[in-house]
């Protein structure tokens, strides 16, 4: 029987020759990631062991990763106390893949994992964050789970009772033409599929545009797969995956490249054309409310946000810096930038991008998730509009239900910063 790449991964992780869609399996977990919500995972983990007479020890601390990113540096005594509790657990259990609040090795979990080579093709990766789908960019089967489910993984080393998901093949023909980006592609895909259109399915990406795409762009695609309800997004590993892991993530080990079989059973095939794609914008208040930028051009914007696990990598910042260099952020509009990791921040400083952006008027914050989900900095006022390269625009997402969030690429965000209104980046800065 032919298998999709996720079926092959789950067969490997369950020690079976084949698995079929709908089979209930308990795959061995290769990497189990949490952020600040490790504080809740620890509570639930200790609860599992209560009155059992067993010692509460995770199955394999080397496979646990904990990255502080949601509220960094801590915004409140409560968060600081949670972080302290997690640090104590990390030290007691010898968890080496721990990334504290640091400029050298800290950052957003979905960037820290790939850039440190923690994620490999063919792995099963779970994370207590819905955007764990990101790691499919490296050919892993990666999906989000809740804190109690993570406590169960810490105890048993397996994800319990997983139904092997069906896969939707996404075939992207043609080539993206600058300044149209992978973000525009995934926004169009989410708009096409709808917010629940890929529910309980995997999105497996193929085609010329994917082959030509950097790992950074693939991370953006897989990151936002969950916005169509997908369990996971995945780009089967290829030469670019190997290049990224060897050259950027410093991985020297042997790698297990898994690819789908030629006649793998897809639930359906969705075709997109990259060549004719316009820049896209997701309008309030759902991510699938997607329109071409031309149809919303001129909308007044109070805050531009560039960053996050979706679009806070070096190529995103470079694109924004190229558009803003020598120009000014419009008066009445503020712009905040937060690189996806300390490493990327340093690279952006070295390349001069941070200076270009600051001279234009942008505020360049530390790496973290805060503004994207309205937990820490960058709050919006009543009636204000944000244009953001992040991944969600639900009502209240940026902390104020009386505000609106539009989602876009770094190119649309940067061009719009100059004009103060939503602007097509292909128009040389004119709305």
């Amino acid at each position, binding site marked *: 029987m032919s298998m999709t790449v996720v079926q092959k991964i789950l067969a490997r992780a369950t020690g079976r020759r084949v698995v079929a869609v709908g089979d*209930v399996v*308990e795959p*061995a977990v290769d990497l189990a990631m949490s952020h*600040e*919500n490790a*504080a*809740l995972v620890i*509570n*639930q983990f200790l*609860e*599992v*062991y209560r009155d*059992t007479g*067993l010692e509460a020890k995770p*199955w*394999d601390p080397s496979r646990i990763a904990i990255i502080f990113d*949601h*509220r960094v540096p801590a915004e*409140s005594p*409560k*968060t600081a106390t*949670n972080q302290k509790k997690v640090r104590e657990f990390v030290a007691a259990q010898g968890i080496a893949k721990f990334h504290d609040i640091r400029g050298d090795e800290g950052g957003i979990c979905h960037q820290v994992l790939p850039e440190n080579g923690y994620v490999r093709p063919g792995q099963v990766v779970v*994370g*207590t*964050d*819905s955007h*764990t789908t990101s790691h499919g960019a490296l050919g892993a089967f990666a999906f*989000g*789970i*809740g*804190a*109690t*489910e993570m*406590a*169960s993984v810490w*105890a*048993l*080393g*397996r994800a*319990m*009772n*997983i*139904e092997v998901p069906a896969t939707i093949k996404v075939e992207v023909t043609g080539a993206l033409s600058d300044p149209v980006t992978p973000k525009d592609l995934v926004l169009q895909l989410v708009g096409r599929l709808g*917010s*629940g259109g890929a*529910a*309980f399915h995997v999105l497996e990406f193929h085609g010329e545009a994917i082959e030509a795409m950097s790992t950074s762009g693939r991370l953006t695609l897989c990151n936002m797969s969950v916005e169509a*309800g997908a*369990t996971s997004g995945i780009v089967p590993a290829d030469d670019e995956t190997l290049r990224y892991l060897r050259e950027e993530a410093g991985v020297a080990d042997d790698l297990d490249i898994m690819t789908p079989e030629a006649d793998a059973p897809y639930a359906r095939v969705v075709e997109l054309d990259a060549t004719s794609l316009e820049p896209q914008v997701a309008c309030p208040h*759902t991510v699938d409310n997607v329109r071409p930028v031309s149809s919303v051009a001129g909308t007044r914007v109070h805050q531009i946000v560039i960053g996050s696990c979706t679009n806070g990598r070096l190529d995103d910042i470079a694109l924004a810096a190229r558009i803003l260099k020598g120009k000014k952020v419009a008066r009445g509009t503020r712009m905040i930038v937060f690189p996806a990791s300390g490493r990327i921040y340093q690279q952006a400083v070295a390349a001069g991008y941070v200076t270009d952006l600051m001279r234009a008027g942008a505020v360049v914050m530390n790496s973290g998730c805060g503004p994207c*989900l*309205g*937990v820490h900095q960058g709050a919006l006022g009543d009636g204000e509009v944000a244009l953001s390269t992040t991944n*969600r625009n*639900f*009502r*209240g*997402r940026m*902390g104020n*239900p009386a505000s609106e969030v539009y989602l876009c690429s770094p190119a649309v965000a940067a061009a719009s910063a100059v004009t103060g209104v939503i602007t097509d980046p292909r128009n040389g800065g004119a709305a």
Partner: protein
Amino acid sequence: MSRARVVLALGDDVSTDQIYPGRYMATVLPTETPQYAFADHDAFNARLKSGGVPLGSVIVAGRNFGCGSSREQAVSALKGHELVIVAKSFARIFLQNAINLGLKLVEAPDVVAAEGDDLAIGVSELTNLASGRRCGIRPLPAARQAVMDAGGLIPYTRQRLLAGKGARA
């Protein structure tokens, strides 16, 4: 068959940001999260906190309820009020978190109900007693039946540990 009143009727794509806004995520304990359930929905949150919503009351919603974040607070906050969620469909992570924590979900793809309606909820069918309209109930994933039978994922995992099976060699 249980009978319960709809206390809130919502549309499609109710996100975890609406159910439990991100700014309260530093609060994690299930004893503390219920105060922030639907925190930005001032009137409903006030009713919940004043004890004006009887245990077992129903929130009815459209497709993709619980979309967005994996935050488990969105489940523990509703569970704290012993609400029952009847929706046309649920987002995957929310569904799994609800089963893991024992929040009662009813997936009824054709449900039509308004605030104040009484619902009779059976195993395979739901009746809106205000309109007389009946609709089917889709069973929750069979893969998770063992977790439901154990009363949630914590007791289930504890059973597996004590049985000495499941933990990796």
